[in-house]
């Protein structure tokens, strides 16, 4: 869903002024640099309003939030490469964020947030692979858990990810579209990590099984609850949200593991408000903010803090099989960034 940035309020006024004059002035008016250039613009997915409000409250810095799905954020950043409009990106899939870093799109001036010293063990697991990189994990979760609707599926039939191409579920398998959904890419790419060909083979079988592709995770969850589909890979916060609502959803943590990915944050190399952007990152990585993020009321309020001093919320973990944080298996983020275009293109070509 879109939210309006305050900077665009002025344009309608300009329009009316231009309208009363000559049409020719349209281009001229548009040529003026927008006053918004020095307002921090953050591209992110989910609870943007809550973040912006609290951030401004805490720091006095005005922030404009552009809330799009993860895939859309990455595509828009690509599309704006000639002339980036964003200052900070905060998106699921640290492999994709690392790709931005590798291609020189992130600000890399040697700065590291002080809060990086306070990463939890899980945070350090990602951060310390290369503490020099100019992006930072904020939280982690599973981009997909293996879930099913117990009204249609027996528990013993779903023990591994292979259930996605089990012929008995033909036409009743769902997944989010990696082109649009942020978590979908870390999810699907996880299957390619050891062996690209194995990944293609696996997903080809899933496609042959008549997988239904949805725009994002929410419609997957709704379709699963409604019985339109019976089995799916569903993002972790979504899953727990549905479970909490008592929808008919069961979770499986299969033996081969559950993919894990970080939501990561980085600064645009073209930013003109680097200080504000750094303040934002420092703020995001503060224990208070992390605590706040575990508490905000939201559809998907499941939030795993990565900074010492913040307590996980009580949604974690709700499943009878687990009494601990999900055993995430993180992909190699450098690899994930490199093959992103290839895998996403393959999916968009398959998904017809």
């Amino acid at each position: 869903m879109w939210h309006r940035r305050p900077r665009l309020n002025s344009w309608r006024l300009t329009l009316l002024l231009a309208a009363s004059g000559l049409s020719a002035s349209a281009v001229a008016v548009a040529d003026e640099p927008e006053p918004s250039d020095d307002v921090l613009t953050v591209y992110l997915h989910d609870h943007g309003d809550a973040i912006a409000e609290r951030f401004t409250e805490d720091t006095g810095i005005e922030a404009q939030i552009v809330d799009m799905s993860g895939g859309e954020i990455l595509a828009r950043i690509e599309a704006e490469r000639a002339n980036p409009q964003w200052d900070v990106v905060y998106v699921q899939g640290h492999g994709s964020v690392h790709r931005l870093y590798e291609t020189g799109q992130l600000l890399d001036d040697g700065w590291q947030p002080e809060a990086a010293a306070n990463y939890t063990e899980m945070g350090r697991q990602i951060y310390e692979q290369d503490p020099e990189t100019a992006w930072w994990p904020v939280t982690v979760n599973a981009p997909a858990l293996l879930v099913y609707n117990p009204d249609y599926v027996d528990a013993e039939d779903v023990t591994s990810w292979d259930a996605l191409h089990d012929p008995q579920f033909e036409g009743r398998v769902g997944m989010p579209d990696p082109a649009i959904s942020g978590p979908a890419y870390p999810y699907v790419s996880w299957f390619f990590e050891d062996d690209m060909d194995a990944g293609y083979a696996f997903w080809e079988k899933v496609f042959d099984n008549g997988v239904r592709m949805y725009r994002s995770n929410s419609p997957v969850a709704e379709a699963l609850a409604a019985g339109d589909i019976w089995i799916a890979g569903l993002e972790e916060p979504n899953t727990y949200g549905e479970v909490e609502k008592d929808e008919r959803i069961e979770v499986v943590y299969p033996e081969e593991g559950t993919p894990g990915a970080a939501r990561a944050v980085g600064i645009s190399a073209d930013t003109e408000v680097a200080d504000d952007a750094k303040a934002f990152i420092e703020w995001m990585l503060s224990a208070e903010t992390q605590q706040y993020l575990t508490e905000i009321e939201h559809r998907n309020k499941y939030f795993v803090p990565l900074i010492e001093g913040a307590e996980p919320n009580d949604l974690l973990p709700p499943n009878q099989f687990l009494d601990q944080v999900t055993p995430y298996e993180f992909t190699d983020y450098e690899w994930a960034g490199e093959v992103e275009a290839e895998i996403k293109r393959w999916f968009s070509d398959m998904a017809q």
Partner: protein
Amino acid sequence: MSASTDTRRTPRLTGVIARLPKPESLLGWFIAATLVVLVGLPLAAILLHLAYPQLYLGIFDLGDFDLFTDLWERRLWRTAVQNSLYLSFGTMVIGTLIGAGMAYLRHTYRFPTAGLIDFAAWFVLVMPSFIIAQGWVLFGRSGGTAHQMGMPWLGEFIFSLPGLVMVMSLANFPLAYLAFSAALHWNVRSLEQAARLAGATSAQVVRTIKLPLLLPALLSAAILVFVDTVGDFGLPAAFLSVFRFPLIPYVIRQEIQTVPVSFEGAAVLASVLVAMVAIAITIQIRLLRNAGADFLTGGARPVDRPRPRFWPLLTGLNVTFLGLAIFAPLGTSLSVSFLQRYSAGFTLENLTLLNYRAVLSEGSVLLPAMANSFGIAFGAALIALAVGFLAAYLLAYSGSRLRRFIDITSTVTLAVPGIVLAVGYILWWNQRWLADWGIQVYNTPWVIVLCSAAASIPIAVRVVLGNVAQVPKSFLNSASLQGAGLWTRIRTVLMPLTLAGLLSAGLAVFATSVFDLAITTMLQPSGFPTIPVIIDEHFRTVQYGWATAATVIVCLITASIIVTTRFLVKRLFRQYFATGGSQ
């Protein structure tokens, strides 16, 4: 009493002013330059990116053109091209048959409900295609109207190639209907009567006189349908969430809006689309040139249409058809807007106004979206109107050398699908050097305003030109000799006399721009909600109640803006409208 002897003022013929370029030729240059900026440069940018794929980054390296091979090697592209061709050809045939058939019945026979066809044709024509397509999706989905009416097969049929052809045909039949009606309207009875007197039977008259005379109109109506179908963005957008059927316009969007982003890929597909349209238009021009249809315009007389004995059959056919074309999609949309849960169907306990409350409640994204979209449409209408009016002035009256350029540019744009124009706008306005110069149009609402205006200029020019052409040049010459300069002449003589046309053109551009999904979806700046995009988003995320309620509200508001504006303008300038018909 002498008119000439008192106070003869010698006008000051200040040489400087007299030596400046004529205002008319300045106007010509201004309009030509505006068209270059609005249409020429964006389309040129597409062509340039075919050769220099990274031009937008400022990298002037010749590409290797291997993207063109993707047209047949890459499955998605190949399928999209094939699908677009199948759908467009299918729709061309079926839509033309429906449109021309309805026109023939309407103009040959008299039967109750016949007049409704005209209404339906215009109604469907002005309805944005994505809204019609959304209606069809809701109609056909499991649990939709088709199922509830006990026709699940009809629902399932819709999500297939023949089904899409039917949907497209029902959405695009008005083009064929109106074009063919015009031809039938001018059909000269005396030509047939002469043939009868020369000894031809009624059947022979149809074969040897009627058909040859109507064939060019039929074929050009068909091509109109083809062009409109191949560039349509609304149908693939609406059907995507339910039935994946890749079509070129939607793949273009995908190339630009999903990773891996490929502007050059979009440019290739856009040029393929333009090539298809160009071929079709070329054929049409050929057909019209050889048709010699000019002489058909004379001697037409209202024809006395008989009421045949089988009129109940015609009425039944007509009602079924109209039910399918209008009620099935739009009636479904309307009903869904009152449903609590779409899948629960149309039952009493499932009826609710909650969707409307949600759409109109505080914090609803519809409200800022409406402000934005109406603002965009207003700006686009003003620009298109100003450019269209001045271009029409030049086309009608001026001997400017740029006349031909203006004519061609404004006509060519008519055939360029909105999605292609939008790609051109991205490729042109998103260039690094423009940003370095501080020219920021891309990623601001202005880019939508300008693109919507550019897409609407051809229509504005044609509508206004129709009115301007009725004002004799002597009206302006006489004003000129009364001492009125160019702007005064235009303001005091031409504008009042063409006000009705300006009003129609402006409102038409306004209405289309409010709902232009292709352009807004491609050019929408980040964090700037617009009506078509949020409706499309809600629809694709299966929030049908919200999407349909928003559609109903926006349609009602747009309609009332149009009606109110018409009323106010006619009231304020009553004398201009009263005199419209004289002279």
